[in-house]
Protein backbone atom coordinates (compact mmCIF):
# COMPACT_ATOMS: atom_id res chain seq x y z
CA UNK A 1 0.00 0.00 0.00
CA UNK A 2 1.47 3.34 -1.02
CA UNK A 3 1.84 5.93 1.70
CA UNK A 4 0.88 9.56 1.78
CA UNK A 5 2.81 11.60 -0.76
CA UNK A 6 3.41 15.33 -0.46
CA UNK A 7 5.03 17.55 -3.05
CA UNK A 8 7.20 19.44 -3.28
CA UNK A 9 9.35 18.38 -0.35
CA UNK A 10 11.03 21.77 -0.28
CA UNK A 11 9.87 25.08 -1.70
CA UNK A 12 11.54 28.46 -1.56
CA UNK A 13 9.51 31.57 -2.33
CA UNK A 14 9.84 35.27 -1.80
CA UNK A 15 7.48 37.45 0.14
CA UNK A 16 4.31 38.24 -1.76
CA UNK A 17 4.46 35.20 -4.00
CA UNK A 18 2.02 32.30 -4.00
CA UNK A 19 2.72 28.68 -3.04
CA UNK A 20 0.84 25.51 -3.89
CA UNK A 21 1.42 22.33 -1.94
CA UNK A 22 0.00 18.96 -2.95
CA UNK A 23 -1.02 15.80 -1.15
CA UNK A 24 -1.85 12.37 -2.49
CA UNK A 25 -3.56 10.19 0.10
CA UNK A 26 -3.69 6.51 0.74
CA UNK A 27 -6.39 4.77 -1.25
CA UNK A 28 -9.73 4.86 0.54
CA UNK A 29 -8.94 7.86 2.70
CA UNK A 30 -11.63 10.38 1.95
CA UNK A 31 -10.72 13.04 4.49
CA UNK A 32 -7.62 15.16 4.56
CA UNK A 33 -6.34 17.51 7.23
CA UNK A 34 -3.67 20.15 6.74
CA UNK A 35 -1.41 21.37 9.52
CA UNK A 36 1.28 24.01 9.81
CA UNK A 37 4.28 23.21 11.97
CA UNK A 38 6.66 26.08 12.52
CA UNK A 39 10.22 25.12 13.41
CA UNK A 40 10.36 23.46 16.80
CA UNK A 41 6.69 24.05 17.49
CA UNK A 42 3.52 22.02 17.58
CA UNK A 43 0.88 21.46 14.95
CA UNK A 44 -1.49 24.25 14.06
CA UNK A 45 -4.68 23.10 12.35
CA UNK A 46 -5.24 24.73 8.97
CA UNK A 47 -7.99 23.00 7.00
CA UNK A 48 -10.07 19.86 6.89
CA UNK A 49 -11.66 18.46 3.73
CA UNK A 50 -14.00 15.53 3.47
CA UNK A 51 -15.59 14.21 0.30
CA UNK A 52 -14.51 17.31 -1.57
CA UNK A 53 -16.02 19.77 0.88
CA UNK A 54 -14.28 22.06 3.35
CA UNK A 55 -15.53 20.95 6.77
CA UNK A 56 -13.56 23.24 9.05
CA UNK A 57 -10.68 25.68 9.05
CA UNK A 58 -8.33 26.84 11.73
CA UNK A 59 -7.52 30.35 12.83
CA UNK A 60 -5.65 31.35 9.69
CA UNK A 61 -6.31 34.24 7.30
CA UNK A 62 -8.22 33.68 4.05
CA UNK A 63 -5.02 33.72 2.01
CA UNK A 64 -4.66 30.13 3.18
CA UNK A 65 -7.02 28.05 1.09
CA UNK A 66 -7.24 24.66 -0.48
CA UNK A 67 -9.36 22.09 -2.14
CA UNK A 68 -9.90 18.38 -2.39
CA UNK A 69 -10.28 16.70 -5.75
CA UNK A 70 -12.63 13.85 -6.74
CA UNK A 71 -9.77 11.36 -6.35
CA UNK A 72 -9.35 12.70 -2.76
CA UNK A 73 -5.97 14.26 -3.44
CA UNK A 74 -5.68 17.76 -2.09
CA UNK A 75 -3.78 20.97 -2.47
CA UNK A 76 -3.05 23.85 -0.14
CA UNK A 77 -2.61 27.33 -1.54
CA UNK A 78 -0.97 30.18 0.30
CA UNK A 79 -1.29 33.58 -1.32
CA UNK A 80 0.63 36.76 -0.59
CA UNK A 81 3.34 34.88 1.28
CA UNK A 82 4.73 36.40 4.44
CA UNK A 83 7.97 35.58 6.21
CA UNK A 84 6.11 33.92 9.08
CA UNK A 85 4.56 31.43 6.67
CA UNK A 86 7.89 29.63 6.66
CA UNK A 87 7.09 26.23 8.14
CA UNK A 88 6.60 22.54 7.53
CA UNK A 89 3.16 21.88 6.07
CA UNK A 90 1.77 18.48 6.86
CA UNK A 91 -0.99 16.67 5.05
CA UNK A 92 -2.78 13.96 7.00
CA UNK A 93 -5.48 11.87 5.35
CA UNK A 94 -7.87 9.79 7.35
CA UNK A 95 -10.38 7.13 6.51
CA UNK A 96 -14.07 7.49 7.19
CA UNK A 97 -14.86 6.55 10.75
CA UNK A 98 -12.84 6.84 13.93
CA UNK A 99 -9.45 6.24 12.38
CA UNK A 100 -6.15 7.88 12.98
CA UNK A 101 -4.37 10.39 10.79
CA UNK A 102 -1.69 9.19 8.41
CA UNK A 103 0.92 11.87 7.92
CA UNK A 104 2.97 12.67 4.87
CA UNK A 105 6.59 13.73 5.19
CA UNK A 106 5.58 17.31 4.75
CA UNK A 107 6.46 20.19 2.50
CA UNK A 108 9.05 22.59 3.86
CA UNK A 109 8.17 26.12 2.76
CA UNK A 110 10.76 28.84 3.13
CA UNK A 111 9.76 32.44 2.49
CA UNK A 112 12.60 34.87 1.91
Amino acid at each position, binding site marked *: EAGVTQSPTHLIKTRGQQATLRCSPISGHTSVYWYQQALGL*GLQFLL*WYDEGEERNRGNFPPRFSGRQFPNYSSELNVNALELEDSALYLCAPSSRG*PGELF*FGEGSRLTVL
Partner: protein
Amino acid sequence: AQTVTQSQPEMSVQEAETVTLSCTYDTSESDYYLFWYKQPPSRQMILVIRQEAYKQQNATENRFSVNFQKAAKSFSLKISDSQLGDAAMYFCAYRSGWNQFYFGTGTSLTVIP
Protein backbone atom coordinates in the same frame (compact mmCIF):
# COMPACT_ATOMS: atom_id res chain seq x y z
CA ALA B 1 -13.47 23.45 22.18
CA GLN B 2 -11.48 20.49 23.32
CA THR B 3 -7.95 21.14 24.55
CA VAL B 4 -5.01 18.80 24.91
CA THR B 5 -2.25 19.61 27.37
CA GLN B 6 1.21 18.16 27.50
CA SER B 7 2.85 19.69 30.53
CA GLN B 8 6.33 18.31 29.90
CA PRO B 9 8.07 20.18 27.07
CA GLU B 10 11.17 18.05 27.49
CA MET B 11 11.94 14.70 29.05
CA SER B 12 14.99 12.50 29.19
CA VAL B 13 15.48 8.83 29.95
CA GLN B 14 18.43 6.52 30.29
CA GLU B 15 18.64 3.82 27.67
CA ALA B 16 16.81 0.64 28.80
CA GLU B 17 14.88 2.55 31.47
CA THR B 18 11.19 3.45 31.55
CA VAL B 19 9.71 6.88 30.97
CA THR B 20 6.17 8.21 31.17
CA LEU B 21 4.89 11.12 29.13
CA SER B 22 1.84 12.96 30.42
CA CYS B 23 -1.21 14.16 28.57
CA THR B 24 -4.47 15.59 29.83
CA TYR B 25 -7.46 16.74 27.83
CA ASP B 26 -10.64 18.63 28.36
CA THR B 27 -13.88 17.45 26.80
CA SER B 28 -17.58 17.08 27.44
CA GLU B 29 -17.91 14.20 25.00
CA SER B 30 -18.24 10.60 26.08
CA ASP B 31 -17.16 9.00 22.81
CA TYR B 32 -13.77 9.96 21.43
CA TYR B 33 -10.37 8.59 20.50
CA LEU B 34 -6.91 9.32 21.79
CA PHE B 35 -3.58 8.89 20.07
CA TRP B 36 0.11 9.24 20.66
CA TYR B 37 2.22 10.22 17.67
CA LYS B 38 6.00 10.18 17.35
CA GLN B 39 7.93 12.62 15.19
CA PRO B 40 11.64 11.77 14.96
CA PRO B 41 13.96 14.62 13.97
CA SER B 42 13.38 15.56 10.33
CA ARG B 43 11.26 12.51 9.81
CA GLN B 44 7.66 11.58 9.25
CA MET B 45 5.12 11.61 12.05
CA ILE B 46 3.93 8.11 12.83
CA LEU B 47 1.25 6.65 15.07
CA VAL B 48 2.53 5.02 18.24
CA ILE B 49 -0.66 3.90 19.90
CA ARG B 50 -4.41 4.61 19.99
CA GLN B 51 -7.11 4.26 22.61
CA GLU B 52 -10.86 4.22 22.19
CA ALA B 53 -12.58 6.01 25.04
CA TYR B 54 -15.26 3.32 25.36
CA LYS B 55 -12.62 0.69 26.10
CA GLN B 56 -11.58 0.37 29.71
CA GLN B 57 -8.56 -1.74 28.92
CA ASN B 58 -5.38 0.23 28.36
CA ALA B 59 -3.85 -0.13 24.90
CA THR B 60 -0.46 -1.74 24.52
CA GLU B 61 1.89 -1.95 21.54
CA ASN B 62 5.09 -3.81 22.35
CA ARG B 63 7.16 -1.50 24.58
CA PHE B 64 4.55 1.25 24.45
CA SER B 65 1.53 1.31 26.72
CA VAL B 66 -0.93 3.89 27.93
CA ASN B 67 -2.56 4.66 31.24
CA PHE B 68 -6.02 5.90 30.29
CA GLN B 69 -7.96 7.47 33.13
CA LYS B 70 -11.25 8.58 31.61
CA ALA B 71 -12.67 10.24 34.68
CA ALA B 72 -9.48 12.17 35.24
CA LYS B 73 -9.18 12.90 31.49
CA SER B 74 -5.63 11.68 31.52
CA PHE B 75 -3.83 9.70 28.83
CA SER B 76 -0.16 9.05 29.62
CA LEU B 77 2.30 7.09 27.48
CA LYS B 78 4.76 4.69 29.05
CA ILE B 79 7.82 3.63 27.12
CA SER B 80 9.58 0.62 28.56
CA ASP B 81 13.14 -0.48 27.83
CA SER B 82 13.84 2.84 26.10
CA GLN B 83 15.97 2.68 22.99
CA LEU B 84 18.00 5.33 21.18
CA GLY B 85 15.49 5.20 18.35
CA ASP B 86 12.75 6.36 20.70
CA ALA B 87 14.26 9.84 20.76
CA ALA B 88 11.67 12.08 19.13
CA MET B 89 8.94 14.61 19.69
CA TYR B 90 5.81 12.93 21.00
CA PHE B 91 2.39 14.43 20.43
CA CYS B 92 -0.80 13.50 22.20
CA ALA B 93 -3.93 13.86 20.07
CA TYR B 94 -7.69 13.76 20.60
CA ARG B 95 -10.25 12.91 17.93
CA SER B 96 -13.72 14.18 18.68
CA GLY B 97 -16.99 12.60 17.68
CA TRP B 98 -17.14 15.25 14.96
CA ASN B 99 -13.85 13.98 13.51
CA GLN B 100 -11.95 17.06 14.58
CA PHE B 101 -8.42 16.45 15.84
CA TYR B 102 -6.72 18.37 18.61
CA PHE B 103 -3.01 18.09 19.32
CA GLY B 104 -0.92 18.85 22.37
CA THR B 105 2.19 20.99 22.10
CA GLY B 106 4.49 17.99 22.24
CA THR B 107 7.13 16.51 24.51
CA SER B 108 10.69 16.22 23.28
CA LEU B 109 12.18 12.95 24.49
CA THR B 110 15.93 12.49 24.74
CA VAL B 111 17.37 9.02 25.26
CA ILE B 112 20.72 8.99 27.02
CA PRO B 113 23.08 6.15 26.07
